[in-house]
């Protein structure tokens, strides 16, 4: 209920404010929002602009009507992104999944010129698992066990004025893994696309996978999501259907979270507000 009231309050404030200020959302597809569903694009909000986002992922649709098709099981993530300069973006977020907090910096290496169809950015992220140490069942317990790191090179291209897509090679580092055979460094790859159906409505797609082939970190059901997003003033509403419950870059691609069949898909949404 508290989350709902917060949403309503932010929405109301945003609608009022949006009518007063110039729209900082970029006209090109790569800059309309920083995230496709979970995957970040190469874009930043621009110098001095702040973006607030709320992400929700629900339980399996197969839970049926009694659980409102997953609605009763919800994971939430709240975060802020801020443009220190046109090239440099930083952000923080808190996820209910693993009680995880994260902070990141993203530096846009190329793509700021209007003549360029390419975006290129480097993202480095640190995640801290906030679960109580006794839950881990490890004695002695070291705080370093809580940490994971993500580094990504995000390459995006506006193929046509209506179609933006990219690829994201990266690596996830996990400080503590289960066994000596599990890799601490997991190479990853992601891909994303955004297609403009009409000026304020886009279809989106993203997928990620672990490249730790042959190890325990190889995925049988890599995360993937389809979405539709609506842009209203300074707000973006993103609805998604996918198989991942986690929304955090350090967790989403390191363990199977749901098979890709009709009974294990889950709905989700992101609400974004930019100032």
């Amino acid at each position, binding site marked *: 209920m508290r989350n709902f009231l917060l949403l309503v309050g932010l929405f109301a404030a945003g609608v009022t404010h949006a009518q007063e200020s110039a729209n900082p959302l970029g006209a090109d597809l790569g800059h309309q929002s920083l995230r496709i569903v979970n995957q970040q694009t190469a874009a930043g909000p621009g110098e001095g602009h702040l973006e607030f986002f709320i992400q929700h992922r629900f339980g399996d649709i197969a839970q049926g009507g009694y659980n409102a098709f997953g609605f009763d099981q919800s994971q939430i993530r709240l975060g802020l992104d801020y443009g220190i300069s046109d090239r440099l973006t930083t952000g923080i977020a808190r996820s209910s999944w693993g009680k995880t907090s994260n902070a990141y910096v993203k530096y846009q290496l190329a793509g700021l010129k209007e003549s360029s169809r390419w975006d290129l950015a480097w993202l480095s992220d640190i995640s801290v698992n906030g679960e109580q140490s006794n839950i881990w069942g490890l004695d002695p317990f070291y705080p370093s066990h809580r940490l994971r*790191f993500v580094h990504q090179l995000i390459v995006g291209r506006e193929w046509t004025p209506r179609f933006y897509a990219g690829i994201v090679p990266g690596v996830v580092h996990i400080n503590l893994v289960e*066994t000596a055979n599990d890799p601490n460094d997991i190479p990853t790859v992601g891909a994303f696309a955004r297609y403009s159906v009409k000026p304020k409505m886009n279809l989106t797609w993203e997928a990620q996978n672990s490249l730790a082939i042959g190890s325990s970190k190889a995925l049988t059901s890599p995360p993937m999501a389809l979405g539709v997003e609506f842009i209203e003033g300074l707000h973006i509403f993103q609805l998604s259907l996918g198989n991942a419950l986690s929304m955090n870059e350090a967790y989403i691609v390191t363990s199977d979270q749901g098979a890709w069949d009709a009974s294990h898909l889950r709905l989700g949404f992101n609400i974004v507000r930019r100032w």
Partner: protein
Amino acid sequence: MLLALSLGSCYYDNKEDMYGTSGPCDTSNVSYTTHIKPLMDQQCVGCHGATAPSAGISLHDYASVLASVNSGRFIGSVRWDVGYSPMPKGGSKWTPCQIQQLLTWYHNGMPQ
């Protein structure tokens, strides 16, 4: 700065070497009989047995576990998800391996 922090806080630890745990998490051929029932007996049946189960939720056999998982409350409770009553009540959370085995079993169609 974050890159520097990453390098400074980076460790290559594993539980097996640090704590001598029993080895890799076995998620191959997970079935109710071989993996899930021993977990239930150890973690759940004490309160959620066949007779007078707590909250009316019995977890003493395959059918009752299936019914509970299908109700949509079981996995969230075991995983201590937000909005769920964390289980086992007053006990330690299942280990990541036990939760992974449960999820694998669930995703594979909950074989008996």
